[in-house]
């Protein structure tokens, strides 16, 4: 039998099953969204496939209801753990009025929810990084002890905002976790055309720790992120974590990845797909038997079906609402 690695890092059997549930849920929502797209029912999908382990592993390291997040568009696994529901996700891909991120104003993947301490995100990459730093700064000013998570792709780590935000956090030793999901590509551009060095190494220049972790391993990712969160909460400042993974599908439903990477490369990566790999681990350490696995599968299946149906039938935003919320309601100041 395989060694039980999750106990060592403080995760209970229940927690790792939960992790698996979220990973599978993210995967199945994602797969359904592609089907809907190919069936012409939704115009656009951006995918998390291949990144679920890192996203869910990281998410488990945070305190829901206390910590804050500024996730990026691929972070479906992360936001599900934080409290977005399958219905929320499907409403978003159908662009329906009830969709919690933006009321259908934004493309899917632009997460945000005040209720979930998740700041609204936009499309221009990396703008969320200084926001996370600002939320951390505000927390310190108000004597709070929240830690802030922000994620971004490895390509996006080349934007000026990454540099400026990371340095600001370094100067003020703020409790921010910079989580880079290095999936080997920025649309078609591979690492060697994108990065002069290694993302994790950039932390050195800001005076804090940079760590590389196997993003296919949710337990190891959890461990590394949890340690960073603990340090942050103890006032020891930010950490940059680069999780290594592979984007298993095209960049988005508008992309055709055959133009820039070989099928062999993709197939090879699929053999390391973190979702079945984690299921295998759970089976091997005896945490998940067949009945349990079937139950999880079924629950996920049912939730995805329910969410799809609910979202498909939900109403679109009222056209007249176009003009709302440009500014707040005027009030006496």
């Amino acid at each position: 039998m395989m060694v039980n690695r999750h106990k060592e890092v403080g995760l209970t059997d229940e927690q790792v099953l939960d992790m698996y549930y979220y990973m599978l849920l993210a995967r199945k929502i994602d797969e359904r969204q592609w089907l809907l797209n190919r069936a012409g029912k939704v115009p656009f999908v951006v995918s998390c496939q291949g990144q679920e382990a890192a996203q869910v592993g990281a998410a488990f390291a945070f305190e829901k209801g206390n910590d804050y997040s500024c996730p990026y568009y691929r972070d479906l696994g992360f936001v599900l753990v934080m409290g977005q529901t399958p219905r929320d996700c499907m409403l978003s891909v159908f662009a329906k009025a009830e969709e919690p991120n933006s009321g259908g104003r934004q493309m899917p993947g632009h997460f945000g929810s005040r209720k979930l301490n998740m700041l609204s995100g936009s499309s221009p990459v990396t703008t969320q990084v200084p926001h996370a730093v600002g939320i951390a700064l505000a927390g310190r000013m108000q004597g709070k002890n929240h830690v802030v998570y922000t994620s971004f792709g490895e390509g996006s780590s080349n934007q000026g905002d990454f540099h400026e935000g990371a340095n600001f956090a370094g100067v003020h030793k703020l409790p921010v976790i910079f989580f880079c999901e290095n999936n080997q590509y920025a649309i078609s551009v591979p690492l060697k055309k994108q990065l002069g060095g290694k993302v994790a190494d950039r932390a050195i220049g800001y005076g804090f720790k940079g760590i590389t972790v196997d993003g296919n391993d949710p337990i190891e990712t959890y461990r590394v992120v949890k340690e960073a969160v603990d340090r942050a909460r103890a006032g020891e400042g930010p950490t940059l974590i680069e999780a290594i993974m592979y984007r298993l599908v095209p960049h988005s439903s508008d992309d055709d990845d055959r133009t820039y990477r070989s099928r062999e490369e993709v197939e090879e990566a699929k053999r390391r797909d973190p979702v079945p790999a984690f299921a295998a681990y759970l089976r091997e350490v005896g945490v998940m038997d067949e009945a349990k696995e079937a139950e999880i599968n079924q629950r996920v299946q049912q939730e995805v079906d329910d969410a799809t149906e609910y979202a498909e039938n939900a109403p679109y935003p009222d056209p007249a609402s176009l003009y709302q919320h440009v500014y707040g309601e005027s009030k006496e100041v």
Partner: protein
Amino acid sequence: MAVISYIDAITMAMREEMRRDPNVFVLGEDVGVRGGVFRTTAGLIEEFGEQRVVDTPLAESAIVGVGIGAAAYGMRPIAEIQFADFIMPAVNQIVSEAAKMRYRSNNDWNCPITIRAPFGGGVHGGLYHSQSVEAMFTNVPGLKVVVPATPYDAKGLLKAAVRDDDPVLFFEHKRCYRLIKGEVPETDYTVPIGKAEVKREGTDITVISYGLTLHFALQAAEKLAQEGISAHILDLRTLYPLDKEAIVEAAAKTGKVLIVHEDNKEGGVGGEVAAIIAEHCLFDLDAPIRRLCGPDVPAMPYSPTLEKQFILNPDQVLQAMRELAHF
């Protein structure tokens, strides 16, 4: 002469310029192996190699900034911004650097860079893949801002931009890419930057527009002709600096002016056009200067109901033209 699409005219212009001048090169995100997310640069890396078709890191300020350095040195870079919405990180390089290089060096240095960016909505792009950002740059002396509406103009203006000794922002309407087709010579020609063009002669009302909405006006003019209304239609083509003479002439011709653009109304390019008219031929006017523009909300939402509500359609343009004719 072959009938080709707006996007193919753009690709053709780049290919021809790259063949003509070894100093012309392309840089941007996914412009190489992928041929651009819209496929505007498709085939270029195969023909010219990765030295001249550079897949850059994901960093717009560097795309423009590196381009500026190369341009000042003597190259002719064509920098692609993947969506006009993502030009914002490069504003400092465009406005503080490219636009002022010649002036600040008292003509010692100059900066012949072309910056291409697809703009505009109606493509389910949501708030950040549908924006019209041209107004941000139409107050910046040293820059030229160009928006072609037809394949012919797209090819000719892009070639003129590449050969221009100063920086040119070249905005391409995404909906036009495959929707708009037209005759394009395979020969070498340029269309002069800074010149508007009368796309239809008329006598009752003047419509001034650019980009996709110009086509709405042209279509409406056809219909209105059957109602006995004759519309004079001016395509601005260059938004900065504006072709003031052409604007005044077109306005004076009919005395009734409608300005149409997809961008938000307040602070849009139409304001300056109206101001030029109100300053130079006020007494030729028989009606208030009307503007039909996008609503003053931050951007075009994703949901189809909201997108439709935002974006101008041919009927609205037709309606506004008819109303003006009957004023």
